[in-house]
């Protein structure tokens, strides 16, 4: 087993109330610790909020503010503007955080405004691909055919009928200097991207894939493995875009078929039954298109 040495004081303290094997709290902790303590963070309503900030307790070791579900980017914009006018910009970097729903659905407008205006803010989307805090409802970042409470499996449903929204491309379309996709399955890569983002002035967008044992119905000991399989099947390629162009792709030595990713997760278990071949083919086609775009090897 690989051990990641921890040389810094945890910036999200132990004692938060997240589930065992939670990819979100791991991802958030890795991001904050890469950023260091000279930061001010916002966080949207959702699991990150509910697990860290039950009054009178707080797991945040950095200045942190939660306002509403959809305004994390706008609140961060106000913080950044205030630091500027008060002559305190050197005091802290500003990081806005939200889940996939807070980012790509209800908060998309506020995020777009923040990116367009050019605030010096790193926006981090923790993507567990559904509304987990409220009991697993589909979001626009839920992948095709995943089962959620609002995209159930039935005689006339294979789960979510729409594709996952390409949120990094939407962020990049704002002409911002840095967009990156990372995963808790690859902590050093994730932390390198946080540090790089914070070294760049202007708006940055980082999307972090974070398995959710509860919502994805996988064993809580498999969080890292499931995250890695998403990358190895080319369903969640990890890359960086600088000024609109892809500048790095995390390569995989061996590409796996998507069914390798499905077999650990209850949300995809219907795809492993006989008769699901056509649905599986649709998702394999998504992975194949990703592989072609990002230069992954063929499946072996």
């Amino acid at each position, binding site marked *: 087993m690989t051990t990641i040495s921890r040389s810094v004081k945890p910036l999200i303290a132990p004692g938060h109330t997240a589930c065992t094997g939670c990819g979100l709290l791991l991802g958030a902790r890795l991001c904050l610790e890469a950023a260091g303590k000279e930061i001010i963070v916002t966080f949207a309503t959702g699991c990150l909020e509910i697990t860290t900030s039950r009054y009178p307790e707080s797991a945040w070791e950095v200045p*942190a503010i939660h306002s509403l579900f959809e305004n994390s980017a*706008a609140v961060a914009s106000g913080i950044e503007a205030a630091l500027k006018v008060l002559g305190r910009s050197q005091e802290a970097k500003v990081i806005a955080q939200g889940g996939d729903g807070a980012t790509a659905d209800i908060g998309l407008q506020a995020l777009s405004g923040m990116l367009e205006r050019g605030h010096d803010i790193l926006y981090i989307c923790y993507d567990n691909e559904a509304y987990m805090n409220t009991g697993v409802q589909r979001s626009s970042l839920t992948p095709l055919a995943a089962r959620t409470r609002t995209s159930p499996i039935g005689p006339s449903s294979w789960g979510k009928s729409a594709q996952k929204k390409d949120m990094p491309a939407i962020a990049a379309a704002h002409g911002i200097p840095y967009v990156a996709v990372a995963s808790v399955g690859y902590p050093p890569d994730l932390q390198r991207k946080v540090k790089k983002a914070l070294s760049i002035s202007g708006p940055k967008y980082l999307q972090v894939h974070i398995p959710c044992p509860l919502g994805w119905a996988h064993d809580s000991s498999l969080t890292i493995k499931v995250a890695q399989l998403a990358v190895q099947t080319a369903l969640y390629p990890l890359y960086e875009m600088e000024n609109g162009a892809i500048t790095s792709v995390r390569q995989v030595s061996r590409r796996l078929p998507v069914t390798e990713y499905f077999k650990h997760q209850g949300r995809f278990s219907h795809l492993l039954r006989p008769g699901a071949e056509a649905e599986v083919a649709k998702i394999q086609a998504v992975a194949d298109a990703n592989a072609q775009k990002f230069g992954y090897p063929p499946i072996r």
Partner: protein
Amino acid sequence: MVKSASLEGLRVLEGSRAVAEAVKLCRAQVISAYPITPQTHIVENLAEIVADGELKAEFVNVESEHSAASVVLGASATGARTYTSTSSQGMALMSEVLYNIAGLRLPVVLSCGNRALSAPLNIWNDQQDSIYVRDSGVIQLYAEDNQEAVDMHIQAYKIAEDHRVLLPLMVCIDGFLLTHTFEPVYLPTQGEVDAFLPAYQPLYYLTPQSPLTMGAFAEPDKYMESRYMIHQAMERAKGIIEEVAQEYGRIFGRYQGGLVEEYQVADADVVLMGMGSMVTTMKVAADEMREQGKKVGVLKLRAYRPFPAEAIRRALRPGVKVAVVEKAISLGGLGITTGDLCSAFYNQTYRPYIRGFIAGLGGRDISPTSLKQIVNRMEAEVEGGELEFIGLNRELLEEG
């Protein structure tokens, strides 16, 4: 009442410009606004003022009123003095954030250029939009004219930022009737305002030097206490609003009332009660009726939230009849301030005769004639004192 006799400092300004100048004098540091749904010239003027380097501020052009309120929320939490303004649909969109700002105890100051809510779409003045956020924990003050709007904004920061209060404050100014109307206005000097309103001293703010968490969630065993404390701060604000208005009066020579303003109320048989620009019309109507021997007075609600029940009870003597004129309505219920006024008296040993009149919705004129009509209706007490709409076009209603 304007007491300044000299013409020094007197300028003829559009209401929106006058408010923008007041916000500049208050040295707002982060200003955020969305230009439509709908906006006044206030923020256009402020954008110019910032662009011209006359005010050291960050002007954040956002993509909605929801974000405008969120930006000033974040900026206020970081320790900056903030400002936004909106009206109508924009106020409705902002409402979620306004509740949040109040709950976070952030002294954001905003202006509402009062206008009607859709549907039907109508861009003209009434007060439904600010009434819509009545229960949000935002202090609401209503200006009668543009001079009061200027003075009220300067007082607003002092009230909101007082550590005994720490609540957002909305200055309500009637759309078009004030925001787009040119009036002579005294603007204080920067030195005078700086002396009256020192820099904002936040009690808490976001900084790595002293990390804290804002916006924690509260379970059933904690939530009610938090709401109670906001209510208490509202109650304390009554004293601070009066105190600040009186201090302002001493320094600047203008006192237009604290929580309420009484105009010939003491000996009145009928009192017209209202908020905003209609109060000037009420005063004119009262004067004219007094010339005809009718004892009519006017009670101006300067503060609507917190509701100045005690000040109103002190002002209204037993036997008086009160006609509440409202530019908003709780559809299917009462006139809204009428309900507040009735509640203020229900458990008292005497209750004035109170009736509510809905007037001036969606920009319809409230004239001295229509107010005289109301006073005439009050002379005969109608059983039950039901709500009455003033100036309805019956022909239009019959067309169906």
